[in-house]
């Protein structure tokens, strides 16, 4: 039974390399790939469950059309593409191409995804999106401060003496990082976790600080000024490599540990211990998660955290890095994140009109001249995953026609008129990178798609044919859909960027030339000043924030009897993916909300009771669980549940952008909890 090297394309830090075992063209095993140093232990439970996902009974393998009863019936590709082409032509004639809404998201990474944009450009344009649901506030914060987004290689963590995991839970969301943390701990490294929850990561930490959600910047600034006032910072580093120190020092003069402890509602002793560790233990790797920057103050919060790494000189050295995102393997992007999320960054006027991902429903409804009439969704599930599900559904209902390409009948697919079956990761050649490790990864086609699954390249090519484009025009705009054609297309694309690309890296994980194991080791920063911009005039100009990192309270704050809604990711899903598989469902059979014990007592709730989470946006009925270590005043309902399985948390969230980067401030959400 042959083994093939491939790589997981999910929106996940780890982006594992793994070996796929096949038997007579059938996927039979998934095994670790030691060639990728970052993920040598092998994939997580989700990666292993690809065997089920590939052959799942509920996988879509034929085009489907919604019938009058709301169910879906199989149709032929001719019927599907004929209907879609007819609708597209009609909309373009009557309203212009910008009445077409092209929505794509992060469901599967790969260079072949570019075919979508190419198709819609050929079509004459479409309305697209700007911003991102995930990480841009933090990306923008780091970009403004350090110039771009890089951090040390994953294995460099072993060199750290202090690992500060701030709002990150790698035990569930980046399991391979745990391996390096554990190795560091074996050498005596101290681990501190900052998180309102006691996550599986918090469980192995030495110290756990549980701030009030949205106050993280206050904690950072309190410690920052403590370092400055007590001469506990790296003066040499600051003088030589940092721009804006004086301005920053003045701006944080009012902060101290006591004030931080009060704002964050953490005992002073724990804040003092953390401040002492940051001042006294070198080198430190500070690992912020992405959850903390999905607040309305998210960008400034990440800038505030960065000050701790900067003041202590924990940049550009082994074991010393600000470990937010490592885009060194994103070598094929012409415009790198977060700039690619800016509205209007796309130079092609055909894509001039964009709608905010964070305020999707609102933006779709607000679009006039022309109004949106047709929506094409691929690699995304906006009904479940974008804020304010109710408004997203309403905006979709206002359209004349909806098409979704997916492997499964998601919430969004169910809200569509035609659903086209999507390929799996094993069914077309592709190339991905990682935002954590430095490898570029080739993913070969290993399996024949089941049923009548077409890869997206073929879907678009055939649709173009139905729209009346000639083969010449199609070939000019779209890559070939056949296996050999796609392979040489990828070889050409990759070869234009790196020489090894022409051989697709020999199929091995490749660290591109110039990738830094220790990021910014030269201590030259691609910022306007060439230094670390502790204060940033660009930040003030672009985002109307203080040029110094600052703490801004959230737009909303829970009153008596109200709760912060935390919607973290778990090990069981990548957003709304994987939840349908029995291998996953056995660990997470039904949605549930977790309350702190003190809150459960106050509400008279016992584990297993039914409760309702509700606010002005909507409500969710769910099962209650209790966590005796959760911070009081928080209720946890994990990200990724769909309405079809009991309710997306986005029924409760509001469409709101972050302070910078066009991110999504999911976490400013306040809910009430009622026992049923």
């Amino acid at each position: 039974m042959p083994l093939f090297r491939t790589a997981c394309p999910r929106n996940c830090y780890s982006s594992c390399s793994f070996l796929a075992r096949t038997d007579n063209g059938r996927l039979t095993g998934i095994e670790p790939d030691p060639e990728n140093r970052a993920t040598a232990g092998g994939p997580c439970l989700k990666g292993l469950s690809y065997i089920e996902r590939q052959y799942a009974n509920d996988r879509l393998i034929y085009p489907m059309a919604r019938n009058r009863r709301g169910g879906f019936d199989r149709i032929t590709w001719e019927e599907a593409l004929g209907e879609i082409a007819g609708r597209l032509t009609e909309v373009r004639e009557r309203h212009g191409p910008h009445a077409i809404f092209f929505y794509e998201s992060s469901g599967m990474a790969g260079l072949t995804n570019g075919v979508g944009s190419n198709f819609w450009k050929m079509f004459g344009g479409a309305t697209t999106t700007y911003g991102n649901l995930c990480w841009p506030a933090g990306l923008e914060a780091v970009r403004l401060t350090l110039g771009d987004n890089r951090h040390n290689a994953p294995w460099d963590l072993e060199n750290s003496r202090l690992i500060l995991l701030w709002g990150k839970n790698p035990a569930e969301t980046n399991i391979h990082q745990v391996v390096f943390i554990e190795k560091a701990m074996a050498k005596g490294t101290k681990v501190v976790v900052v998180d309102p929850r006691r996550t599986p990561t918090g469980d192995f930490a030495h110290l756990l600080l549980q701030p009030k959600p949205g106050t993280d910047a206050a904690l950072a600034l309190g410690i920052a000024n403590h370092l400055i006032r007590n001469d506990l910072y790296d003066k040499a580093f600051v003088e030589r490599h940092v721009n804006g120190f004086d301005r920053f020092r003045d701006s944080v003069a009012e902060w101290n540990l006591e004030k931080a402890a009060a704002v964050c509602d953490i005992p002073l002793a724990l804040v003092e211990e953390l401040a002492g560790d940051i001042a006294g233990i070198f080198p430190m790797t500070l690992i912020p998660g992405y959850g903390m920057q999905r607040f309305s103050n998210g960008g400034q919060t990440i800038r505030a955290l960065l000050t701790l790494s900067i003041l202590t000189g924990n940049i550009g050295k082994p074991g010393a890095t600000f470990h937010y995102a490592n885009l060194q393997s994103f070598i094929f992007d012409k415009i790198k994140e977060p700039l690619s999320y800016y509205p209007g960054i796309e130079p092609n006027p055909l894509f001039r009109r964009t709608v905010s991902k964070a305020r999707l429903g609102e933006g779709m409804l607000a679009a006039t001249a022309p109004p949106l009439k047709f929506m094409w969704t691929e690699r995304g599930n906006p009904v479940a995953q974008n804020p304010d599900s109710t408004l997203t559904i309403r905006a979709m209902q206002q359209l004349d026609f909806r098409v979704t390409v997916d492997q499964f009948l998601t919430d969004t697919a169910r809200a569509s008129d035609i659903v086209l079956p999507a390929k799996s990761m094993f069914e077309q050649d592709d190339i991905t990178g990682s935002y954590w490790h430095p490898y570029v990864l080739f993913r070969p086609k290993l399996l024949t798609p089941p049923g009548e699954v077409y890869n997206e390249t073929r879907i678009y090519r055939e649709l173009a044919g139905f729209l009346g484009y000639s083969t010449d025009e199609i070939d000019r705009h779209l890559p070939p859909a056949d296996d050999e054609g796609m392979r040489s297309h990828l070889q050409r694309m990759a070869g234009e960027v790196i020489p090894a690309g022409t051989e697709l890296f020999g199929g091995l994980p490749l660290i591109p030339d110039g990738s830094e194991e220790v990021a910014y080791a030269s201590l030259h920063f691609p910022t306007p000043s060439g230094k670390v911009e502790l204060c940033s005039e660009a930040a003030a100009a672009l985002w109307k924030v203080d040029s110094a990192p600052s703490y801004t309270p959230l737009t909303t704050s829970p009153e008596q009897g109200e709760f912060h809604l935390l919607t973290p990711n778990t090990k069981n899903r990548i957003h709304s993916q994987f939840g349908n598989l029995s291998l996953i469902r056995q660990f997470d059979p039904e949605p549930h909300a977790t309350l702190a014990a003190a809150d459960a007592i106050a509400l008279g709730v016992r584990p297993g009771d039914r409760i309702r989470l509700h606010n002005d946006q909507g409500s969710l009925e769910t099962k209650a669980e209790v966590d005796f270590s959760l911070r009081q005043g928080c209720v946890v309902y994990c990200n990724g549940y769909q309405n079809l399985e009991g309710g997306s948390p986005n029924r409760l969230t509001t469409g709101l952008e972050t302070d910078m980067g066009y991110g999504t401030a999911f976490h400013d959400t306040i809910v009430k909890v009622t026992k049923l």
Partner: protein
Amino acid sequence: MSHTGFIVDTSRCVACKACVVACQLANPGQDHAVWRTVTSMNGLRYPGLSLVSLSVACNHCEDAPCAENCPARAYRRDPATGVMMHTEEHCIGCRYCTWVCPYDAPKFNSASGVISKCTGCQPRQAEGMKPACVEGCPTGALAWGDVGGIDAEVPGLPRTAIRPGLKVIPGRKNGQPRMAVRITPAIEAYFQDVGVVEPKKVSLNEEWTLVAFTMLAALQVAWFYAVFTERAEMSVLGFGLSALTGLMLSVMHLGRKGRAWRAILNFRRSWVSREVAGYGLFLLSAGVWMVLPWGSTPGWIALLAGFFTLWSMDMVYLRIAWQGRSFLHSAGIFSFMVFMYIGFFCGIPWLFYGVTGLRLLLYLLRAPVWRHGNRDSLRGLVIFRIGVGFILPLLLTLIDGGAWLDGIILLLFLAGDLIDRSEFYMEIEIMSPGKGTPSGWGTLSG
């Protein structure tokens, strides 16, 4: 002596469950019975208690209680690897191995009606591969190798002397993270209330046939004693019907009824086999004594076999750990029940009142013990058991009322005993990973 088995490094385990999925994929057919379990102690995350996760399947113990106690000899050790193998084709689905294994390794598959369990991935190992769970562990927390023997008491695992093939490397960081969640007396009380939820392996719903069977056997032996000693009248038809009922009840419990005959194969070591064989011999020889003119010998054999059966029944339950583990349980079959009914059927006042009094005393001493927790709803049953199952029939025996009253008294005693024996099954607390540890330690969901 050292042997091979699983090595679990708790410093590296974060309960990611990849091992469970890897096991299921490499060993299909676990839809209803998953071999490997990750037990996280302190799943409710009580501050001040650390959270320890243990990935456990079968430890292929040196002195494996599964093999020792399996009546059908479905277990055998593979001489080459030392792995304890279970043969599904030999299994009768009695589930006794799930009671005696402290690690919950044997899993009952309700779909197939038999047990299945971890094979140490023998087929993979034969091809030079690691067990699937070991290969599937992304953090390197699981290994397969020389375990030397369990070296220390492991939090969350029962202490046993069965020499499991398991080595647990304790976490290097002792204790929970320093943190600040406040525990008030109200939270402490709430924790005591909701935190002690331990799944029961023995459930009365599933085992009611055993309650009925064990009580019926006690009645049959007592009645036979009375007939044999000529203190009661013989009824071949009645005995025949009760024998059929007993056989039916004993077989109903099995997942694979057609293989019931295998239940006597492990007479040498298993009390279950002895119980089954003894019961069969009792019915056969009692029947022979009643209908064939072969003298008193078959009757003596029947008596001996009968008492041996009831003794075996009590031993079956002594072999597993249960709260207040003692031979002297008020619902004990050999220890009490049979002698009370002998006293009743034979009209031996000292035996009847002596045993009944002792049982009442034991019950009173015991009743408050199991009434803890959320079982207040059962208080009514306790009162019923004492009032209607003991006091009332005892008072009625003081009245000279003839056969119909004796019938009522017997029914009242049986009703009381049904409660007592059912409680006995509810009290059975079998050793499991996560048990016997500070309260609130249980399996973490998700």
